[in-house]
């Protein structure tokens, strides 16, 4: 150990220290037991292995689901109706349900979130109003989804009497993804150079004209990123939907119909031990959907930053 330490410490140092006198550099090193070079190498190895482990976990999660799930996926699985509580047949109704609930959520969260972001980024200076709004948005972002589920159940399902429905689920998820949309959209708007606004205003545009014609078009990909991330969150959510959209395993025909999303279906298949192969298949569809969403979001973000040069 000591020999190795000495060898490693000694060999590269002559080439690296052209200083004429071996002036003892006051070392900011936190380590007192090993030479800085050893610590450096040790740290490097440790850090890289930790990173490798993290990546490995991710790959394992995806590979595990894919290897067992992709085999179950077929046209009849995607487009077919479930039989025997989902033990056989397809998952088409849950795909449609997911789509409906997500559309409802986005329809709620986009105008509100975009409006809020425009207000925060364009219409108000940092004062107490924006402070409160920003604090509220941050707080909302930190609330566990199960609380949204409880709230959605007490408010939309019970008090407003919407029942377990696409609408209740969509409104609840809309509230849940609102902070994501606000934050991403505000960041996108703030990233648009101030000069663009000034140019527009100097050419006779009102504040709203400038936002509509210059700021929003430039920020659009960034805003879309937020919406896509919101969609991804809505698709993968279980706790908030199960109490609000319900679990009916059929294609909803109206906003007031109960609906079972893919995530809830997957949860039910798993927890009721109905069918492992069906569960893996559903999980694979879910994970592929989320992967695609992330790729889309990333591509949009990339385009946005390129737009801004």
């Amino acid at each position, binding site marked *: 150990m000591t020999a190795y330490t000495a060898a490693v410490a000694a060999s590269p140092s002559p080439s690296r220290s052209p200083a004429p006198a071996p002036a003892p550099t006051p070392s900011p090193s936190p380590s007192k037991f090993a030479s*800085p070079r050893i610590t450096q190498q040790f740290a490097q190895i440790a850090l890289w292995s930790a*990173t490798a482990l993290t990546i490995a976990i991710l790959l394992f999660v995806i590979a595990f689901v894919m290897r067992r799930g992709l085999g179950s996926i077929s046209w009849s699985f995607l487009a077919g109706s479930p039989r025997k509580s989902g033990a056989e047949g397809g998952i088409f109704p849950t795909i449609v349900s997911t789509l409906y609930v997500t559309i409802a959520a986005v329809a709620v969260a986009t105008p509100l979130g975009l409006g809020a972001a425009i207000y925060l980024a364009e219409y108000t200076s940092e004062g107490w109003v924006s402070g409160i709004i920003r604090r509220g948005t941050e707080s909302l972002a930190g609330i*566990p989804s199960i609380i949204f589920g409880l709230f959605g159940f007490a408010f939309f399902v019970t008090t407003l009497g919407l029942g377990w429905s696409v609408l209740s689920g969509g409104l609840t998820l809309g509230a849940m993804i609102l902070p994501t949309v606000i934050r991403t959209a505000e960041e996108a708007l703030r990233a648009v150079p101030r000069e663009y606004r000034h140019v527009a205003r100097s050419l006779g545009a009102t504040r709203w004209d400038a936002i509509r014609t210059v700021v929003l078009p430039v920020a659009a990909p960034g805003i879309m990123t937020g919406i896509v991330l919101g969609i991804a969150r809505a698709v993968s959510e279980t706790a908030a939907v199960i109490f609000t959209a319900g679990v009916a395993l059929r294609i909803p025909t109206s906003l007031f119909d109960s609906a079972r999303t893919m995530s809830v279906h997957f949860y039910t298949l798993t927890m009721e031990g109905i069918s492992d192969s069906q569960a893996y298949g559903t999980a694979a569809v879910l994970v592929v959907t989320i992967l695609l969403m992330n790729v889309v979001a990333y591509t949009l973000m990339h385009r946005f930053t390129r737009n801004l040069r």
Partner: protein
Amino acid sequence: MSKRLPDRVAARILLGAASSAIAILALITVFIFREGLPVIIDRGPLSFIAGMRWAPSQGEYGLLPMIAGSAVVTAGALLLGLPLGIACAITLAEMAPPRARTVLKPTIELLAGIPSVVYGFIGMEVLVPFIRENPAFGGAGYSALAASVILAVMVLPTIVGISIDAIEAVPHSFREGSRALGATQWQTIAGVVLPAARSGIVAGVILGIGRAVGETMAVIMVAGNSVRMPHSLLDPVRTLTANIALEMGYASGAHAQALFATGIVLFIISLALNELAGRARRRRRVTQTVPEPTLTTAETRAELLGGDNAPPLGREHFA
């Protein structure tokens, strides 16, 4: 002209939209408290929060085992996830070549997008049997340990993402200064970069805690859900979130109220964690942009960002 919204009307509408988050927060508060507060008042807050027994059929609602459960599981998740997450953040922000970073960072963020039920499922299929069959662990497999491991994986992206941002926000001159004094890369990271990024990393960790405390489905699937104070990591535990989701199905009357009351406790914990994270983040903003005072009013902002391309500096400019 008709399609153009008058500026002031636009401002009103936008303020309305901006208030929506506050309105939702208020609605959540009102409805959770309206449903849950009666049972807390009825049993007394202390016996509700510090009570050891949860037996709804006998009208006993003590939340302490669940609070302990949430705490143990979260602590376990941090113990496993924190070193991994921060190491990963340091590597990606400081050591990895830019090409690798542009690939790896979104890849890790992707982990956050995978549905929690999928994590729970993998926990049930892989982790629980592993713990049960492994002589080193034993027990039923459904345990605080299983939940901690799953949660550690789930909070990784939060910790990594925010820590990377915090580390990248440390001014480059800090590193150059340290390296110029002869420090190695690791000495620079440990002695200069990490301390400077500390509050940002702390914010990431707190948000990670928030995610762990709030996670429901993955935990319910692997934690075993026994209502008992955990004595070891191999004991089954029930978290606050699991308590709600598990019993919502059939609960009625006081039982349902007690579940909403569980929600109140969870809600308050989440808000508190969020507030802490917010403070840490704000502190970072102040410390890392030292030269600029915080931008609070329109005037000071204008003064700094100014109309003049070369901001008027006053007399000292001529001195």
